[in-house]
């Protein structure tokens, strides 16, 4: 019962992260702020949802596979975010206008 409640709270929080991130993608206007919002899904959202699923299903071979998926997401998601920001920094000639700190 307690486990189920904790799992439900975790999955709900993960879904909330996804919703916040999607709203952020639409509301922000610049690439770097947008990927800042989009990266929430890759890390915090997947972590909470996968932990909730593991708690619901109990620990076993399935949860090891889920943890592998989580590791893959955590390796690839930030790297893709880094790639997008790198392209923006390289190609935007008016990059300094968007960043107050130089």
């Amino acid at each position, binding site marked *: 019962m307690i486990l189920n409640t904790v799992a439900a709270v975790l999955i709900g929080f993960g879904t909330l992260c996804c919703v916040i991130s999607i*709203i952020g993608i*639409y*509301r*922000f*206007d610049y690439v770097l702020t947008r990927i800042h919002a989009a990266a929430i899904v890759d890390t915090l959202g997947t972590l909470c949802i996968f932990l909730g699923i593991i708690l619901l299903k109990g620990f076993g071979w399935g949860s090891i596979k889920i943890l592998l998926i989580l590791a893959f997401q955590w*390796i*690839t998601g930030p*790297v893709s975010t*880094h*790639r997008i920001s*790198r392209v923006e*920094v*390289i*190609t935007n000639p008016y990059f300094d206008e968007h960043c107050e700190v130089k």
Partner: protein
Amino acid sequence: MKAPKWYRKLEQWVEGDARDLKEPKAHDESITESTRKIENHNGPSLIRASRSELISAVSRISAVICCFVLLVVMMFTVAFMPTTSTESNVTMNETAKRYIEQGMDEVGATNLVANIILVYRGFDTYGESCVLFLGATAVIMLLANDRKNETEKDRAAQRLSDKLDAKIPNQVLVDVTKVLMPVLLLYGAYILCNGHLSPGGGFAGGSLIGGAMILCENAYGVNKVRTFFGHTVYHAVKVGALVFYAALIMYTIFVGSNGLENIFPKGTPGSLLSAGIILPINIAVGLEVACTMYAFYTYFVRGEL
């Protein structure tokens, strides 16, 4: 019909700052104005404009007519389809039952989906592989760098982009590629070779291998990939895989329709070397898919392999 007020308010709120970006900018108009002036400057513009307008009108009307003809043909075909979920329907009782009950004995793979798509419906999957081949060929035709398609300006832009790319360090992606690339290739090969035992098969494994090659191209540059996957290797692998698949599927159809004995052994169900032609077909399809994915990527990015 006008959207209700609350919907517009919600849209406004969701759009946020991004709304400002969508408003048309002032200098766009001046650019089109200047291009129009340049176009008008050389040659009799009036005749050309009327002719191009005529051509565009004819093509638009013919496109609409084509769409209508296709629509009519398709609706006509739908009307002749057998109704679903009736007792007398063939698909409801005979085909599916035979696939499930005798698929493993007749073909030998424990993965029934692989049985169906690669042997019973093998000709159809061969058509899908041809679609991949044709797609890659069309992309090459449209985007390849040749003397008609590339100007000195394009080459200069490409050089500038390469220089900028090399100037800023890329260590994060290189380190991650060192970890991920072997895992991706191994997993892709596993899915390819286990297509007749577990879910997966040529399309899934091939796209994994293609993704791994795209990752390698991103991290180490195109010259590194060219050392093992250049122009010659690409064409050899792509055409070879398709021809191999065609030969296998033709042999299977010929043997099956004439009641001859198939030389490919079925083996014991569940072992790696079993299920006759499914394993080689899976490998051929996987190579085809991997080549297509990598070719799409490179031709869209730089116009050459």
